């Protein structure tokens, strides 16, 4: 099976700060990959490279190669907007637009110039069902998204991302701002989505990584310390630093 994502000796600097120091790894399609590590270890920076969300940060520059579906996404001929339709993102804090639920979900399609009402309505229903939110909101699609609870807002943000039909979804601590029940729902959702999407998730919660991911990467001070099957990382890590981190000795 070929790889969905491959990175080769990736470095990132913010001004003179060396945030990532030569990260090389590969991700297979239809898997969940978790990035763990203490705050400031570079895991979010690494994740945000995959849809070029670091481009707007002042002083950002990078080295190395990132290949998604066989294309170098930092190559000259890449259209960033096209890349982001392929590689969707769900953020740490739910960030719905101050619009209706419906308008939130169809936003990504509307900016592509799709205005056919039937297409939009169908996409809205499909995406909300995929995100396990449909039953809760189907009678109130015109309601403001800001009136939803935090957990519902985050599932709405996932639906919004799915509507664009990406092949890969990046999640930056998607449940860290949510209560345990909402978190459980999001985790369940991630496992369901795995069959159709490649998912990469940054998490602070090691139980979460253990529950949902196939492979786990442990980062420390900008370096990839260990990358292996999740089972191995949590039961039989090869590196001492990984062992210390997962047993809670630092971080």
């Amino acid at each position, binding site marked *: 099976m070929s790889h969905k994502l491959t990175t080769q000796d990736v470095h990132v600097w913010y001004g003179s700060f060396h945030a990532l120091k030569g990260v090389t790894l590969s991700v297979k399609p239809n898997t969940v990959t978790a990035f763990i590590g203490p705050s400031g270890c570079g895991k979010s920076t690494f994740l945000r490279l995959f849809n070029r969300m670091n481009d707007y940060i002042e002083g950002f520059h990078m080295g190395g190669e990132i290949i998604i579906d066989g294309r170098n996404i930092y190559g000259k001929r890449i259209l960033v*907007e096209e890349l*982001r339709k392929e590689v969707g993102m769900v953020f740490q804090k739910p960030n719905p637009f101050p619009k209706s639920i419906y308008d939130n979900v169809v936003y990504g399609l509307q900016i592509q110039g799709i205005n056919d009402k039937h297409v939009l309505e169908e996409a809205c229903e499909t995406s909300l069902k995929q995100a396990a939110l449909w039953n809760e909101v189907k009678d109130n699609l015109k309601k403001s998204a800001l009136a939803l609870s935090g957990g519902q807002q985050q599932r709405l943000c996932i639906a919004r991302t799915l509507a664009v039909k990406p092949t890969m979804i990046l999640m930056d601590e998607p449940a860290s701002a949510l209560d345990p029940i909402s978190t459980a729902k999001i985790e369940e959702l991630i496992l369901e989505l795995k069959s159709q999407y490649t998912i990469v998730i940054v998490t602070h919660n090691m139980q979460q990584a253990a529950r949902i991911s196939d492979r786990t990467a442990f980062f420390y001070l900008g370096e990839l310390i260990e990358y292996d099957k999740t089972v191995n990382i949590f039961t039989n890590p090869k590196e001492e630093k990984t062992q210390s981190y997962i047993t809670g000795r630092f971080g």
Partner: protein
Amino acid sequence: MKRKERFVEALLAFSGGLTILTTLGILIVLLIESIAFFNEVSIVEFLTDTQWTPLFADKHYGILALVSGTILTSFIAILVALPIGLSIAVYLNEYAHPRMRQIVKPVLEILAAIPTVVYGFFALTVVTPFLQGFIPGLSGFNSLSPGIVMGIMIIPFISSMSEDALYAVPKSLREASYGMGATRFQTAFRVLIPAASSGIIVSVILAISRAIGETMIVAVAAGQQPRLTLDPLVPVQTITTYIVQVSMGDVEQNSIEFRSIFAAGITLFVFTFVLNTISAKVKRKFQHKYE
């Protein structure tokens, strides 16, 4: 030490109180003189007559003739200032390098610091002749030219406040939009401007307030002919210009002509008061939005 503190406190309270007293004083004088005016002229005539000729033998007191001049010039000004001001705000917020922003913003604000009489002469001696080259029917005095120039003057009101409003939109919304493949342009017009709409509306209302109260530009370039019209090519008179005309002329104090400027003044006051109230309401709504 304590006495000094108390003295400073009293001084500060006095300064604050003085501004309130001044405002109250102005309002009271406006009201007294207006009531005297409305004892002689019926409010129905004031609001429905279509002519305003207090200085002529055949006197008419239809404020609409002045209101239309004010609304016409202000409307043209907003028509110029809103698209340009908003474009500048979006440019500074989304596209410009931070250093560029630091230079452009103060430079733009200079526009608001130019004496308005200079704008007035600019309208009369540059813009009007220039426009006459394209529009043959344009009179020497008209509402189009001062309207455009007034629009340029109020650009910084809109650009500066709208930029602040756009800047206040949470970064997370911007990221959400970019993350779905939106361009900067799409993000600005579909997410940021709607999210900042209350702040932008406030900026527009304040700019309209400023345009309605503006005096010198219209006094110099719009003419002194009260006329109920929406034709931007002919001379008109605004409320403010009428007040200038009477104040500068040799109208007898306590005459009906003299009192008519207070009636005009209170009309102007009602306009700006209503606009300021609306903007305060919108602002309050805006503050709750992201908290």
